């Protein structure tokens, strides 16, 4: 039986009227990397914050390895703090500017020592800090410096060193490379992959960038307006994506290769993202879905297994064997009807866009 580092059961997080997360169930097997992918406002970061209990979920359960931490108070939560760490997107905003790097990285251990639950082998905090810095590729001297003296990439390495110093069983990485330049992004992604392989922690990698996770993740979960629309093994999500939204996401990200990119046709979904205060009835994606039918507007699709490795999808149009429509095969005109077509006769319209692309090649 698979052992899980994390189990989320029907997680719900509402902020007043805003239904940020609305029933997310997800398991992370021990030592594996699950990518949680979604666009702005999908609720992916809120899920991360519920897991490290920066937020107390409205409903549902958060279970770490063996403990239900959903509603533990601060004191009862403390023993579990060392089991789960988080790295945020913006290292400048998440490192205290008045502390030295050494203080920042060693802080989790100092707090444990104060409570008296610091394991014997980590009693020497300064050597633990040096070791943690070395692991993330920083020299021990960096411990004396202030965060503002470091570059963005170095600061993100400091965040990772702090997150890993307590040897957590689960790391939540919330867009850890989105604020970094391409070349620096590559080194931080490589570092995370190496550390994960060497130390064996489980990881929830939250991102909006599907291309970044193909290289890291064992499993991918795709989120839209507070709910998971599809989840499964990486090869399945990239190879045979079943949900129209996953397909659109994959087709939308431009590929850094001119010939390939110009022969692709992104699925255009329209600009209007519905609000999480008043999500659409039925399938939440139906307002932007190019293949939605009547049923999608009224009936909420259940998440069900459609393939090996626990590949699940919540869409009425996907058959039980995983076959179904692929919005990437639609002529662009249909996909972008609400978007680029204007009422003007023949002078505008998506068909012309397609021809223009053809000519540009």
């Amino acid at each position, binding site marked *: 039986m698979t052992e899980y580092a994390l189990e989320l059961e029907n997680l719900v997080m509402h902020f007043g009227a805003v239904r940020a997360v609305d029933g997310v169930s997800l398991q992370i097997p021990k030592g594996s990397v699950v990518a949680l992918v979604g*666009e*702005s406002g999908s609720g992916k970061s809120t899920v991360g914050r519920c897991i490290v209990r920066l937020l107390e979920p409205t409903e549902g359960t958060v279970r770490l390895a063996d403990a239900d931490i959903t509603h533990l108070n601060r004191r009862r939560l403390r023993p579990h703090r060392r089991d789960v760490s988080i790295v945020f997107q913006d290292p400048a905003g998440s490192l205290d500017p008045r502390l030295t790097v050494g203080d920042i990285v060693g802080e989790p251990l100092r707090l444990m020592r104060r409570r008296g639950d610091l394991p014997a082998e980590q009693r020497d905090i300064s050597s633990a800090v040096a070791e943690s810095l070395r692991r993330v590729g920083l020299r021990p001297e960096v411990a004396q410096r202030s965060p503002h003296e470091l*570059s963005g990439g170095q600061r993100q390495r400091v965040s990772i060193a702090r997150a890993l110093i307590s040897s957590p069983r689960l790391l939540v990485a919330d867009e850890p490379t989105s604020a970094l*330049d*391409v*070349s620096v*992004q*590559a*080194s931080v*992604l*490589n570092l995370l*992959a190496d550390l994960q392989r060497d130390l064996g922690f489980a990881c929830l990698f939250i991102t*909006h*960038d*599907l*291309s*970044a996770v*193909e*290289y890291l993740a064992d499993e991918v979960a795709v989120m839209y307006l507070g709910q998971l629309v599809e989840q499964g093994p*990486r*090869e399945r999500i*990239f190879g045979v994506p079943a949900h129209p939204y996953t397909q*659109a*996401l*994959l*087709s*939308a*990200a*431009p*590929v*850094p*290769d*001119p*010939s*390939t*990119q*110009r022969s692709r046709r*992104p*699925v*255009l*979904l*329209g*600009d*209007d*993202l519905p609000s999480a205060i008043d999500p659409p009835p039925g399938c939440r994606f139906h307002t932007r879905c190019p293949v939605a039918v009547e049923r999608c507007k009224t009936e909420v699709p259940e998440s069900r297994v459609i393939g090996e490795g626990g590949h699940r999808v919540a869409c009425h149009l996907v058959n039980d064997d995983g076959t179904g429509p692929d919005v990437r095969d639609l002529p662009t005109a249909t996909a*972008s009807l*609400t*978007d*680029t*077509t*204007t*009422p*003007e006769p023949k002078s*505008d319209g998506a068909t*012309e*866009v397609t021809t*223009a*692309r053809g*000519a*540009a090649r």
Partner: protein
Amino acid sequence: MTSGPVLKVTDLSVTFRTEDGPLSAVDRVSLEVGDGEVLAVVGESGCGKSVTAMSLAGLLPRSATVDGSVQLDGVELIGADKRTLRSIRGREVAYIFQEPMTSLNPVFTVGRQIGEVLQVHIGLSRQAARRRAVELLKLVGIPSAERRVDDYPHQLSGGMRQRVMIAMAVACDPKVLIADEPTTALDVTIQAGILDVLRALRERLGTSVVLITHDLGVVADLADRVAVMYAGRVVETADVHELFARPQHPYTSGLLAASPSAGRHAGTHRLNEIPGLVPVLASQPDACTFADRCPQALDTCSAKQPALESGSHRVACWNPVRQPVEV
């Protein structure tokens, strides 16, 4: 593209006065944009790409010293008086910025803001400007434009706002459109729509475009030609297909290999790293600024600055990558 370039930038240098002394942001950059051509200027944070864009129509603060020449259809813009610049901005050179919310005025309807451009530059009446605003909103793919024209910016989504910015920019049919990271603040599914609009407009209006971006995917999608910038200098420029297929500057090839791309990095494939950091420069040295990060640097590289070779594929490097690299 038989006629001369619409925009010709020659030896453009920008230095900022700062509390810590001078800062060289752009060093003798030369660029040419042909009629109807899309030139992408690519680079990472701090490479000087946005400063270059801002200096083209005199948008930099007074702490900046700008040298060199920027000619728009033969008219010199560097050192031009305020009146000349004012008549050119918005009419012949138009900008699209990264963050549409901060570029739009929250207290006026989008129709009024687009209309203002037309009233000021072309002298349309208020009614005519409004009618034209509706047409422009349709052109950039805003559904029910007749209704949307009376919306305030906050009533529109991020993608819609960027479409409004584009409508405003092309309102006077400018010769050159400068798009500074036009899709960076947007989600990928929204970005795809904006790229589509830019592509369609370029085909329809034949506007020359300077596309400033850090995203090689966006470059691959839109550009005809590419200039790669590093630490204030142009290090390589070539046709877009040529540049991606045969990058010659080690920085360009490193950047290409560092970009994650779906379908290319599955499994154990590692991303390429470029060690070290982009330097911040007080003054530009007589050396290659990439030398200390370069995997194939020679002694010459830190002793003498390489010049851009002439030709259609130009590279400023003493030891360029000559073999096609596998990416």
